[in-house]
């Protein structure tokens, strides 16, 4: 009996990987995507969350605007949500025609928080698209495939409501040195072991932490958003729990070059992701903690032969589903 169940699970998993994994080249026909978009009367918003991204933001806006707005009208708006950059990110983004918002100025009556998840959540309020595409703003080798390939499954397949990128992800670690890593380090050391322990089906998602994904508003406004790094993990778990794996697709975007992060920064990222993950496990009744988890990540730095403590606090705050926010309901006539 047990063996039979295992076989059933295996078959189901294989089907998802086979049927819901795409390559960007399958969606190269942009005329077809535009035609289908117009036939379905869809609007699409691109959101770029930023914090000090002056070196890469212009390139992302220019290429998307040229290729997916001016030449092929796939996108209806490009929106930058900034967390208070100290460099020229905001000026540069504005000069190339993006709609730029300071995250704190959106829904100002709510308590203010800083973080990528906060920006993505607030993008739901300021954008108008039926579909939102979220792209990290630090991609050095940006290409319009990063957007159209995520939109392809959503526009051409009625069943799919959320698409996620994966890639062969070289890291620019030192000048002239690139090394292929397959999945990201946090993915392989943290997320994949956790998925294997609790949600084996989700291990088929090659890069659950990739910063590029797109989804229908009707899904995204019904899930909570952790304000920080945990947003990608929570998004997958919440969509999986509410609608199942079949509404999710993943797309191979091939090479992505991004800024490298040191091990300590990845440690802090892992801390946030672990907290988000265990919080969701508790909510689902899959895990019970005998004591409350701490909110501080403790790291040590060797300074002049002394170990100095570096403490990173993380409250684990989450924004509720946007659809529960009154102002949002009013703006989108959902009352």
């Amino acid at each position, binding site marked *: 009996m047990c063996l039979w169940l295992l076989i059933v699970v295996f078959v189901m998993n294989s089907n998802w990987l086979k049927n819901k994994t795409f390559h960007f080249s399958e969606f190269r026909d942009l005329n077809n995507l535009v035609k289908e978009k117009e036939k379905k009367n869809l609007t699409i918003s691109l959101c770029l969350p930023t914090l000090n991204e*002056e*070196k*890469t933001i*212009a*390139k992302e806006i*220019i*290429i998307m*605007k*040229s*290729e997916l707005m*001016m*030449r092929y009208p796939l996108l209806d708006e490009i929106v930058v949500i900034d967390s208070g950059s100290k460099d*020229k990110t905001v*000026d*540069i983004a504005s*000069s*190339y025609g993006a709609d730029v918002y300071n995250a704190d100025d959106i829904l100002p009556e709510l308590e203010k928080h800083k973080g990528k998840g906060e920006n993505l959540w607030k993008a739901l309020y300021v954008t108008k698209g039926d579909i939102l595409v979220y792209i990290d703003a630090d991609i*050095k*080798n940006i*290409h319009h495939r990063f957007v159209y390939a995520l939109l392809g499954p959503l526009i051409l397949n009625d069943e799919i409501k959320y698409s996620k990128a994966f890639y062969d992800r070289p890291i*620019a670690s030192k*000048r*002239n040195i690139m090394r292929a890593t397959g999945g990201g380090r946090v993915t392989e050391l943290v997320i994949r072991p956790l998925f294997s322990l609790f949600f084996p089906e989700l291990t088929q998602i090659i890069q659950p932490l990739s910063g590029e994904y797109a989804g229908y508003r009707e899904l995204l406004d019904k899930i909570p958003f952790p304000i920080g790094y945990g947003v990608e993990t929570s998004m997958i778990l919440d969509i999986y729990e509410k609608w199942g794996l079949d509404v999710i697709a993943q797309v191979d975007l091939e090479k992505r*070059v991004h800024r490298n992060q040191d091990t300590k920064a990845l440690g802090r990222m892992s801390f946030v992701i672990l907290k988000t993950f265990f919080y969701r496990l508790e909510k689902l009744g899959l895990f019970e903690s005998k004591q409350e988890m701490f909110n501080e990540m403790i790291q040590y730095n060797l300074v002049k032969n002394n170990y100095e403590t570096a403490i990173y606090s993380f409250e684990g705050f989450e924004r509720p589903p946007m659809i529960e926010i009154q102002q949002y309901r009013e703006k989108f006539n959902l009352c």
Partner: protein
Amino acid sequence: MGNYLKKLPSFVDEIRSIRETIISNIVLIGQIPAPTFREQDRAKIFLERLADFQVDECTTDAYQNPIGIIRGTNSSRPPIFVVAHLDTFFGKDVDHNYIITEKSIIGAGILENSVSVGVLASLPEIFRKLNLSFESDIVLAGVVQSIGKGNLCGIRHLLKSWPSSIRGGICIEGCELGRLNYYSDGMIRCNLDCNISSNTRWEHHFRPNAILVINEVVNQILKMRLPQKPRSRVIFGKISGGIKHGLIAHDGKLGFEIQSTSDAMVKAMMNEISDIISDVSHEYGVNLKLKAISNLSASRLKYNHPLVKNTVAVMETLGINPVSEHSVSELSIFLSRNIPAVTLAITKGKNYHLENSRMLIEPMFKGIAQVIGVLMAIDSGVCDE
């Protein structure tokens, strides 16, 4: 002449209105590394972009030069060529990801010559935007193997094998806006290798030093009497050698060019330098190997050639101050085949040959308008006289 000149100033704003498309082409093509002899990846993207912009014919010639042809309205007119070399000085291991700021684009090879290739790929869209059509076919060619040892082989092959006559040519380079080349000097580009045999006994007290040997060659060349007319010179452009500070150099390399307005003088200087090298080689008892890696014949249009006169008018109409000097580029190959041609630059910038090369975005729109003005001049017949 006046008809197209009047339109030019308004072109600048029209071209600026599609800046995102032009910059996208520059970035998407320029970020593909293309060291000389390894331009295929960039050539493929260049062709893809041309095809994406619905250029009538997109192909490569037998030498792998990527070419797009925009069909003209009068099939009896010979084609007009617009060319930019695809290759750059930078190897595939150099980071080619560009940074765009409000006013500039920064990165390896942006001025030499990615901006020109990006503009070349954008011309079909710019023509559409300006509602322009031409009597002649417009051949957009990204030529391979231009720089250094490439010896302009791509353009040589392209022009040599082209089946019909050619009406005129425009070569585009990155900077400096205002550049107007219409003549090229005769030139021989040489490498000198000095190798001290490893068989020399280690206890030898007067072992030759490759750096000093090359220094002696340089000194002897500097003693040569060069005429002011025909204007002639030797440029020492590259030098390398040795392993570390405290070790006598076993090897050294010198790269130089002999340039003159007279091909006979270039040949005479080459002979004299060969003699110097033989003499030094014999005196020091070392192996000195001189190799000519590239050469060009002197060729020119006259300043009062209609193409030059009209190009100056186009530039002045756009407020660009023309600056002329000789050019060692694709231009030489056009002129040596009696095809009227000029070389123009697209924009302004700095750190021309460095990895952090920077081009200014705003001057580029005038630079493109200038290219279109000269194209219109050639299409109106200024090269046909």
